């Protein structure tokens, strides 16, 4: 199994499988943040275009797929719910999300951003007795608002 680690807020860095039962399946193949565009102008009488060769990194979404297998007599939804609850604090109806740092030790990515909750599974299979969701595949998104905090050449652990 591929190990990935996660830090939520100022909590400790934990193994996603050990802590949440989330087994890493796949993630974006990004090797760096995208850039915002260039200022540019063009004239019908002039070839090509003129750009101002200045720009900055853009925000981006980083997607991770997890495989979740329910423990015996447990529902996988309960694991997802526990994971989601760890992502924010709640005051009244308002949820305030904590920043997360995702360590992809397989692709050597360190991704820092704000998480979204897992609200929908991509696939699931039930056990023979149709009692619980045994296996679920979910996609989790991290919104990276400050790309400079990320590292796409993470040192091996």
């Amino acid at each position, binding site marked *: 199994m591929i190990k990935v680690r996660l830090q939520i807020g100022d909590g400790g860095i934990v193994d996603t499988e050990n802590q949440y039962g989330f087994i890493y399946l796949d993630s974006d193949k990004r090797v760096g943040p995208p850039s*915002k*565009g260039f*200022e*540019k*102008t063009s*004239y019908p*009488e*002039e070839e090509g275009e*003129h*750009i*101002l060769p*200045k*720009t*900055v990194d*853009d925000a981006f979404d980083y997607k991770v797929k997890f495989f979740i297998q329910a423990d015996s007599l447990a529902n996988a939804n309960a694991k997802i719910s526990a994971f989601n609850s760890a992502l924010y604090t709640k005051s009244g109806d*308002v949820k305030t999300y904590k920043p997360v740092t995702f360590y992809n030790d397989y692709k050597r990515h360190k991704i820092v951003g704000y998480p979204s909750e897992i609200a929908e599974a991509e696939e699931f299979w039930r056990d023979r007795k149709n009692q619980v969701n045994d296996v679920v595949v979910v996609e989790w998104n991290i919104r990276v608002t400050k790309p400079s905090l990320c590292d796409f050449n993470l040192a091996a652990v």
Partner: protein
Amino acid sequence: MIPAISEHTIVNGVPQNGLWLDPQGTNKATLHQATVSFEEMGERTITTQVRVDGAIAPIFNGWELEFRGETFVLPTLKPQAAKENTSRSSMIDLVFTSSPIHELKRYFFAEMTQIEQGTIMIDKYVSSLRLSLTDFVAAFNRVLDYYFPNGDFVMELSSSYEETNEVKEFPIDYMYIWDVLLKFHEIYGQTWKMSTATVEGRRVTTILVGFDSEEIDNHTFEYGFDGGLLRFERHVEDTDIYNVLLGRGGEKNIPYRYFKDVDPYNTAWSADPDAIPELSTVYFSRLLDANFRRYVQGWKAKHYGDTYDPVRAQTDWAYQKGYTDTKFDPVEYVKDDDSIALYGVRQGKLDDNDDIYPTIQGIWLDGQGRADEVVDVEITAEDDPNAEWDVVTRLPNIYQDVDSSESSERITINSETTFSIPEGRVGRMEFAWLEEHGDAVRIDTTNSRAYAWMRTAQYDAGAASNIPAGGPYHYAASMSIMARVIRVGITGRFGIRDVAIHSTPKDNISYRQVFTIWVKNIWETTQGDESDLTYAHRVWDHILGDRLGNAAAVRFSSGFMASSEDYEFLILKLPEVDRTKSITTKDENGNTITVASEWKITLVRSDAEYEATGLYVPNTTTGGCPVSGDFFFFTGIDLPIQYVKWAEERLTNEKEKSIRENAWTNPTWVISLDKVRAHTLQDEDYGELLADRLDAGVLVNISDPRFTLDMEGRRTTLTLGIRSVSFTWNEPSDKNPYLVPDIEIVLSDKIEYQQDYDSVKGEVNYIQQNYTTVNQVKNIAKKTKQDGSLEIDGKINYLGPVIGTVEI
């Protein structure tokens, strides 16, 4: 966060990073979008909108922004704000104002007075200042010193400014200092700009007056990337074109017999040399332009035997028209025949210009220098009118009860009681108005007076003190009473009270109610074998007429006495010949000359400040006195006809200047800058981005092979001023990081006025005063070529028919 704009919060006088939303700085706001706007001689603001978490009640204390080293502050702590259901955030609209401008918007401008040596206080918030530019700068600095004693502000006049001593009238009426600045260019025609620098740890803002405008002279803006313009647009609006221009001058010093023969019932006044029967019953209250007189002269040559001058007629169309017209149809306009040929007649009118009237101001005399220069002044050293005066008699009140349905009444009340002035003494009467009435009624004190009288003479009370020895005198009040609201009658008791007669020894008074000025031979007259008195009568009788001691007066156009329009000094008696005084001055060519006086004029001190200070003006206590070298002018007199003709010429010149600007289409230009080019450094930019050099008031050159052509079809370069510039950073997007702002500029060759205040009718409506051309702003070596082109710093700018004829 916009990199070009720094964000601070001032906490206990110390700037902290970021815009603090709470006293601890736990939550901060930042700018995602903003517009920096600069107007020439106008506002400098940063407008933005910030989003604040809806759960926070934000405070805005101490918020400041900084752009290009200039500090912008929030004028209000409760800015416009909204919270709506489309977002969890509150939206706050913020307009930051340049800090120096914000300071100048706090306080009213005022006329200052010196109550004693070295102590300045506010005198009037409502006044009409009459100051030369140099004196205005001094007055402005007095106000700045009063409100900002630490020297945070100073107004500085360019050393290249050549003093003309020309006085301008500047009305103030509870105007903020900033509003006075906005109006300054309109009145004086001088540009100004602010410059702030740190001096010994303090931020000092200098208001620079009359300095050259900066010019981006190494780049011509053209369509295309290299030229830096995405768009080049010519706008033409021809509805303002006029080629026949009407308009009259001022009312002051209009001759009693303007275009009329001698009045058989009042022969004190001279006839107009161009009097004709057709005008004998037409009354002119204002000065007419020179073309009117030229027409009349032509008409007179044809119909009344004057000699016709065919050579003159070739160049003087008004004269020729007067000569050839079969029906008397005088003209009082200037015209542009070429424009009429193209567009047909389009009439225009300039508002009557009160500033143009017959005067000796600015007239140069051969061998004498300026005609209006005072040779010498004599004022008694004692300022206190009560010095050495004894109270002789206190007299009963006199009054009349009025019950009238009219809204204005004039009453005259005479005393039965009499008094006398002892032999060897002179007297003066003092009094106060007696008024017992409701709020809806007032005494028009301007048109009311009290006086002593006897069978043969009257003596003004209060200001006039020279009541001769003798008697018995009665005393009287002539009063104008007005209702404050029309259709409301007048009820009440009106008169004078606290009447007191003072007297002093005739030959032993240190204070005199009059003072004396000596002037040059201003009428260039020669004394023949006649006595001084006969000579004085010959020269002055037709000038002063029957206005002596009444309406004929002297005012000053420079020096302290020019600081208020209230300072007007009646000419007490016939001027006397006196050549004992002299002044060393300059002639028109700048040569030093010494000029003797010719006339000694006795003037009555003004009571303009008497209620406030108990002293008459001029005096040595509360302000300055007129001095040798000050300039003066007359009001309420009949000047010799030549001065009238010169004034008519000035009026015509003003109108011709205006028609040159408006007889042809005057395109305006709209351009869109290529912000990529403006933020790309090229070799010709000499190390400074074009974008960083754009500011209000900066001059730029624009050119286009299609649109900027002269009359011969040659491409021209136009030098125009940036009247306003704005830099806008929008919210960054996936497509555009908005690291650099969009730039919008408005160009014009004219400086338009800010209109945040009431304009002053008449005196400011003339084109010359309505804007300053770029070429006047540049104040650099230049000359007009015969082909209408303009040479500026070696570059030929073919500016087309309008701009090419700008007088420089």
